[in-house]
């Protein structure tokens, strides 16, 4: 087996707000094409960890490498400037619980925003790519409507297309289905499943245990800002070793397939 360096490498990462430490010395590697599900109770730090990967939250210490870009944090490291941060974030796509589509743009303009305003791709090319992506998530027929006219599931699929338009090396999903009506969850999970199958490197914060088990290859259980347990998805969900993981998973009824 060839030793390929991991796509995402998180090393000794900590995050504190004042004296309140929310992430304790976390190290995590995600191989190219891997998909990791972060699970855990609310307040466990999983969303914060995810937001640290694309530096929406600035870690207090440690380092993060995504592909070839490394960011170091800590008392001896200089804080990265705005342009450097922006360049780092442009390589990762992120999908939020609350969609965060831009209401001042149509659906297709949302998908074109990154390529147009960040990469300065010509408008025609950006449009062609956006249509292709919207088609991929089954939203091409809504290209010219305002995001406010879409259902939650549709909004989230557009948000995924918008993130993909930057051709990111990594996709981060922050509870992407938590704000959706139950009958709309499936359509978004379907798109995420396709992405994982197509070899996208993904980190997914989720409460969908069945999805974590079936789609992710690694599951990381976090509690109180620590990684309590991590391992192959099926093992952690079906046969957790740590008491806290067992206790947490007891609250979920994970259907078998």
């Amino acid at each position, binding site marked *: 087996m060839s030793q390929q360096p991991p796509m995402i490498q998180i090393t000794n990462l900590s995050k504190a707000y004042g004296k309140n430490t929310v992430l304790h010395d976390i190290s995590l590697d995600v191989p190219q094409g891997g998909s990791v599900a972060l699970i855990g109770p609310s307040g466990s730090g999983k969303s914060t960890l995810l937001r640290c990967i694309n530096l*929406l939250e600035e870690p207090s210490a440690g380092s993060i490498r995504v592909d070839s870009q490394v960011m170091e944090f800590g008392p001896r490291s200089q804080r990265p400037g705005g342009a450097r941060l922006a360049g*780092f974030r442009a390589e990762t796509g992120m999908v*939020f619980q*609350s969609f965060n589509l831009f209401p001042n743009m149509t659906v297709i303009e949302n998908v074109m925003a990154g390529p147009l305003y960040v990469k300065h791709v010509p408008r025609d090319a950006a449009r062609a790519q956006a249509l292709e992506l919207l088609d991929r998530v089954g939203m091409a027929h809504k290209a010219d409507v305002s995001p406010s006219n879409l259902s939650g599931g549709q909004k989230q699929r557009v*948000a995924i297309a918008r993130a993909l338009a930057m051709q990111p090396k990594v996709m981060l999903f922050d509870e992407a289905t938590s704000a959706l009506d139950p009958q709309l969850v499936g359509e978004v999970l379907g798109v995420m499943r396709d992405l994982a199958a197509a070899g996208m490197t993904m980190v997914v914060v989720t409460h969908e245990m069945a999805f974590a088990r079936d789609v992710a290859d690694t599951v990381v259980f976090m509690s109180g800002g620590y990684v309590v347990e991590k391992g192959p998805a099926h093992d952690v969900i079906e046969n957790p070793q740590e008491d806290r993981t067992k206790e947490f998973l007891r609250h979920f009824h994970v259907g078998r397939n």
Partner: protein
Amino acid sequence: MSYQWDFGLVWHYAPLLGTGIEYTLGLTVVTSVIGMVIGTCLALCQQSRMWFISVPLGMVSEVFRCTPSLVQLIWCYYALPIVLGITLSPMAAALLALSIYGGVFYGEIFRAGLRSIDPGQWDGARALGMTSWTMMRRVILPQVLRRMVGPMVSQTVLQLKNTSLVSVVTVPDLVYQGQMVASATYRPLEVYTTIAILYFLILFPLTQLSRLLERRWA
């Protein structure tokens, strides 16, 4: 005994009132534009994480928010020249006081507008790799500006009415000119009625326009 209204004499002095309108409109346009620039800078600087910028500016803006603009105007005209050892023409003092006064309030409107934007919008824009400037220009400002139209027009209406204060430092705006006409004709009732109507005719279309824009952009 009933009062005999006679607007004929006022009409005779129309050119004087015309000059007054020019000054009033000119002052409004200039102080509003400068005020908006000041306000934008204030709002953006107060967003700044650098306390040595945001704290002093916040204090300055509170001073201007919590004192009457008439007092500021008089202070700028009489006291400021002594403090700084310069001379200020009435017009310069008027422009200075009204621009800063307007700026502080425009700044508040802008700040409230920025704060009203869902934090998720900033996240969404940042996650795409936008720099602060791109994010402001493409995502935040287009949303803020729409919400700001109504309050901005209201503030500009106030700004225009506030220009009437400059008459106390002898800038020949509509009110000052009206005082001249009133003392020349001994017809203050007709003169001030006329002036009130003139203000209304200028401002009413403006408030209607803002209603229209707000409805269109709602």
